[in-house]
């Protein structure tokens, strides 16, 4: 500093006699020019560095793999259904050769699935295993009774076939036999169906096709129906758990108060159901009894049926969200899903209360579901004439028989909420004579359909979640992303790949559970608390902070640079002129 002051002092000596300075006969490239241009150059050079210094910590997300996965998931249905393996077992008296020939000849037609390569293998009766022969004979003997045939098929042959192919095999047994009942088609509760009776080869093929495509593949729904409303029938929370909350609502306890022994009945009827759905979701069951819970909309009195009628049209106004305080579960915190099942005991003034279908008929079950919310059953007390002069209302516990009926409706509602049909009575026109029921409420092939459906939905939502996370991350380049999120994304992708591998091998339950895991991890990554509280500093903020320094500095630097450049040009011109003059002179 002092030195500079000194310089200034020397140059500013005005009183000294003026000496003409020497002419600039040097090339005009001096120290001052370097000083002036130095900050400009340095600023330009360090700009990229300083920019990267303001960048935030970002974990590396596996975008490439995500893209790969999403590519695969475009054909997700096909991927999942290639695993479908079928077996056709022909049981005949002597003309087996004919049947098998017929079968081989017609398999080409069964390839209606286009891209879906359904592998169907044909087993001959002449297989060396004596056990098989014995069991097939048993089948032959016992297919007259459906249940016993089921047992016979559930045993040795199906298992052996399954072991032979490594996955789960769907079996259709054709038993060629004269029968009084004509042709019978029975879909069993495991993974098989059988056709009994004399039947032409064309019919056999079309029947088998029906059974495979309509039931084993699509669970009784039309092809593509499941794919369309993909999210609608997956009432599972983002953390892979479902709380089934059962509530008994007493609309007006001053008329009567009903109570139930829920636990006992739930152990009998709901436990197998919950067990069957374990790969899809963590299910927990709760129950409560609530009081003073009137419905929202009014019903009208119908003289003909001497009951109060509530038409389907008004159903959206049945659930009274002001008074029905159903949502009091702490277990269902966060992102889990609660399915509400409500038994509504109407008050004496609106008893009996019946639901009317749009075609004017009265609902058989007196109940309805609301997809993704749950179901409501209206249960009318047996003696509707409430004695309003009582000082004390009757307090009754529902009898086990009544409760069992209610639970049957619950199970049907649950099946519908999970996207299956409540029963197959309506589908009898397809030529299927009988469906066998299972204790858990789901047959094995239905469960397979459910698992496939859930695996597919989970993978789909996993991919969309990760994609939107990727989009978010890419759109906010200044956002902090923790390593943990990167890890979660990685694990999620791994689980998704595992789910796909399992699905292609036909192990649907583990495919469903690992796809669930993939979804949960993806959701965890998306809803990570560090993302929720984005520490996002806008460009305006930077501008406001750096402007007060850089604007005045830049002004000085640029002015100086312009002046110096001007001077340089001028001096250079002078110098060049001097050089040329000198050359002339020389």
């Amino acid at each position: 500093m002092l030195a500079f002051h000194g310089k200034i002092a020397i140059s500013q000596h005005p009183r000294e006699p003026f000496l003409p300075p020497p002419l600039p006969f040097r090339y005009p490239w001096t120290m001052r020019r370097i000083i002036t241009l130095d900050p400009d150059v340095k600023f330009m050079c360090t700009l990229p560095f300083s920019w990267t210094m303001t960048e935030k910590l970002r974990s590396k997300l596996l975008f490439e793999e995500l893209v790969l996965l999403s590519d695969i998931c475009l054909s997700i249905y096909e991927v999942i259904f290639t695993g479908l393996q079928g077996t056709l077992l022909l049981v005949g008296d002597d003309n087996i050769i004919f049947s098998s020939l017929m079968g081989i000849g017609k398999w080409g037609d069964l390839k209606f699935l286009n891209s879906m390569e359904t592998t169907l293998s044909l087993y001959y009766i002449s297989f060396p295993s004596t056990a098989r022969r014995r069991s097939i004979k048993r089948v032959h003997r016992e297919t007259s009774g459906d249940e016993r045939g089921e047992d016979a098929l559930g045993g040795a042959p199906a298992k052996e076939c399954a072991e032979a192919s490594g996955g789960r095999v769907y079996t259709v047994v054709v038993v060629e036999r004269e029968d009084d009942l004509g042709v019978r088609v029975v879909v069993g509760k495991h993974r098989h169906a059988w056709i009994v009776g004399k039947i032409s080869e064309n019919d056999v093929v079309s029947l088998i096709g029906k059974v495979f495509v309509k039931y084993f593949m699509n669970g009784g729904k039309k092809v593509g129906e499941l794919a369309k409303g993909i999210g609608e029938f997956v009432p599972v929370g983002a953390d892979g758990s479902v709380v089934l909350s059962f509530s008994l609502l007493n609309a007006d306890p001053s008329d009567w108060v009903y109570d139930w022994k829920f636990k006992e009945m739930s152990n009998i009827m709901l436990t197998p159901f919950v067990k069957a759905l374990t790969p899809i979701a963590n299910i927990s069951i709760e129950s409560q009894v609530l009081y003073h819970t009137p419905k929202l909309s009014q019903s009208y009195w119908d003289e003909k049926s001497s009951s109060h009628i509530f038409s389907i049209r008004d159903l959206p106004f049945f659930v009274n969200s002001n008074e029905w305080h159903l949502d009091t579960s702490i277990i269902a915190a966060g992102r889990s899903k609660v399915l509400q099942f409500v038994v509504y005991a109407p008050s004496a003034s609106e008893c009996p209360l019946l639901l009317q279908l749009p075609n004017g008929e009265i609902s058989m079950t007196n109940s309805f579901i609301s997809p993704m919310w749950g179901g409501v059953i209206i249960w009318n007390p047996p003696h509707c004439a409430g004695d309003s002069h009582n000082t004390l209302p009757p307090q009754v516990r529902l009898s086990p028989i009544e409760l069992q009926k209610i639970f049957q409706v619950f199970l049907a509602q649950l099946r519908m909420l999970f996207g299956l049909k409540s029963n197959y009575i309506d589908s009898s026109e397809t030529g299927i004579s009988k469906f066998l029921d299972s204790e858990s409420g789901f047959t094995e092939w239905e469960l397979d359909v459910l698992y496939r459906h859930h695996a597919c939905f989970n993978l789909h939502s996993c991919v969309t979640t990760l994609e939107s996370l990727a989009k978010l991350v890419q759109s906010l380049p200044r956002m902090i992303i923790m390593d943990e999120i990167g890890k979660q994304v990685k694990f999620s992708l791994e689980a998704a790949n595992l789910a796909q591998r399992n699905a292609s091998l036909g192990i649907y339950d583990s495919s469903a559970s690992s796809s669930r895991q993939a979804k949960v991890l993806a959701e965890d990554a998306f809803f990570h608390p560090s993302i929720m509280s984005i520490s996002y500093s806008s460009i305006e903020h930077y501008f406001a902070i750096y402007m007060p320094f850089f604007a005045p500095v830049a002004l000085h630097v640029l002015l100086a640079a312009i002046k110096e450049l001007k001077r340089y040009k001028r001096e250079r011109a002078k110098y060049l002129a001097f050089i040329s003059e000198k050359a002339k002179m020389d």
Partner: protein
Amino acid sequence: MAALCRRFTGFHFLLVLVSLSISSLVFGDWIGDDEGEQFTEELLLKPLPDRKVLAHFHFQSTAHPSPDSGHHHHLFPKAIAQLIWNRAPCDAVGHFMVQKFQIRDLELSFTQGRWNYENWGGSDPISSTNAKPPGVELWATFNVPVVEIDTTWKNLTHALSGLFCSSINFLESSTSYTTPSFVFGLNVSNIRYGALPREAVCTENLTPWLKLLPCRDKAGLATLLDRPSIYKGYYHSQKLRLTSTKLSGIILEQTLTIVLQPNIQRNSAHSLLDGAIQPSWSISSMFKRNLTGSCVLARTSRILVELEKNIVSKLEELGHGGSWSNSLLDLSPNPFRVIKEVNPFPEESNSILFEYVNSKEYEPLDVGIKWKLPFVWSSPHAPFHASRFLMGSGTERGSIAISLQSTKSDEYFRSKSNECRMQAVVFQVVPWYVKVYYHTLQIFIDQKLQNLSDVIEKIRVTPSEDKKLPGTLELVLGYPCTVQSVALTLDFDKGFLHIHEYPPDANQGFDIPSALVTFPNLHSSRIYIGDDSSVHSPLLLKFQEKNVVLSYTEVLLVPFTTPDFSMPYNVITFTCTVLALYFGSLLNVLRRRIGEEERLMRSKDANKRGLIPSIVSKITSKLRGMPGSKPLLIFAVVLSVLFHYIVN
């Protein structure tokens, strides 16, 4: 069906019984009984000396221990049971295998207003259990391993704040809760205590609280809770108390204590005395609602009217012992039963409770008192009145003082003054930014400074840790009963907070939660004449418990230095300006060739000059005779400062 019919016949039989004698409070086969769930509702009304009325609602739900706790409930609120029971992982079938309760005791109170210990009583059961500090107070004892307590507490605060629509989750951070060791009578480490003095309490907290009752406010005593009338009161405290043991299951007590000012009902006969006479009141006049019928799910539903012993002694002087209709006051309608307190001192008079059974009737039960003569009495006081205040001025330091003033009310202590020794426990939690110097503790008894070791029987101090722990002081004082006043002072410094730590509206100041003063050798238990049916009343059972007499002090408001919150930007701009100026001048000094410029100027001289340089030169020549860069520099400084000022 057979069982159903039997049930019906049994019920009709009971009906006959009930109509024969309304006194039969046992209503037979009640819902939830065999599941071990019960619900009772009670209301206590009590005239207060300062022309106000205390209404104390007491709802109690019990759930006997069962493996279904938290999953299947009939009367007991499911959410509360889920709070108490540990959420153990499910097994494959979805049933919770290990059932273990994690909270042994819990008390949560929401209070608006301050309990007036002088006028409303300080040593009766209501004041010792239901007088609460303003805002939210939460304490809980846990039944989990010590390492898990803090996590359980955090989960609990979040669950409660979700349940009650309040900001209890602010108690989650370790700066806001503490672990008292002996204040709550238990020498345990599994207790956590936290308070939010500034929490506002209103209907959004009451509605979820009412949701926990099986009848909500649709039937029973809770129908009286007309929001405008109860929030107009002088004191409003809603409390939730949970106790769970392996033997008795979970007991949930929900109490609502309100102090209301009844409207003065003009009485033509005594119009001259209206100013002096106590206002007459009834349930319908106070709550603006009529009480018709009970909650059908309640096992008992009753209303109690209490007359304090000072009123009773006056009545006895006038010659009407326990009558409800006399020359002083008229209680209407006639009570169903009179319950008298038994006092250990036979020479004194006792309080009286008049009981009304709230059964399903068609005419409303409108309990009320009509005063006939002017009458003044006082409520039973605690032996010492506790208050707390701040001393000192400025925003740098100050001191906290807690004073205990003798109320000179208790003859009992006066009588055996010589050997009597009083104990008082002081519990005070101070946020970390109020840096208390505990070594400055001074205790004055009757204005005389005492040697600490003479007065303090036990002391436990947890010093505060910056941004981690609040400071906690627990102190047992022992002094003779004859003492008139006890005062404690503690000095403190006001800390500096990071800019992010200031709450919104920081200029209002910071609250220090109420200190708690308890008198461990005084109990507020009451004994009632042994009547079997009174045992059925959970409220009276509560009154018979041995509760320590306690009082909460005021909340302190400490003003803090609050920074100008735009300061960082100001600092940035000013520093940058200075740096930019320095840089600019330095650059100029290095770059400019003064001699050359002068020569240029001289050669050009007057003929070729731009507008700005000419103005500048004029100004500079006017300012100072000498040319050069100094005035230019000054001018640039002024200009740039002006520029920055405008920009900012």
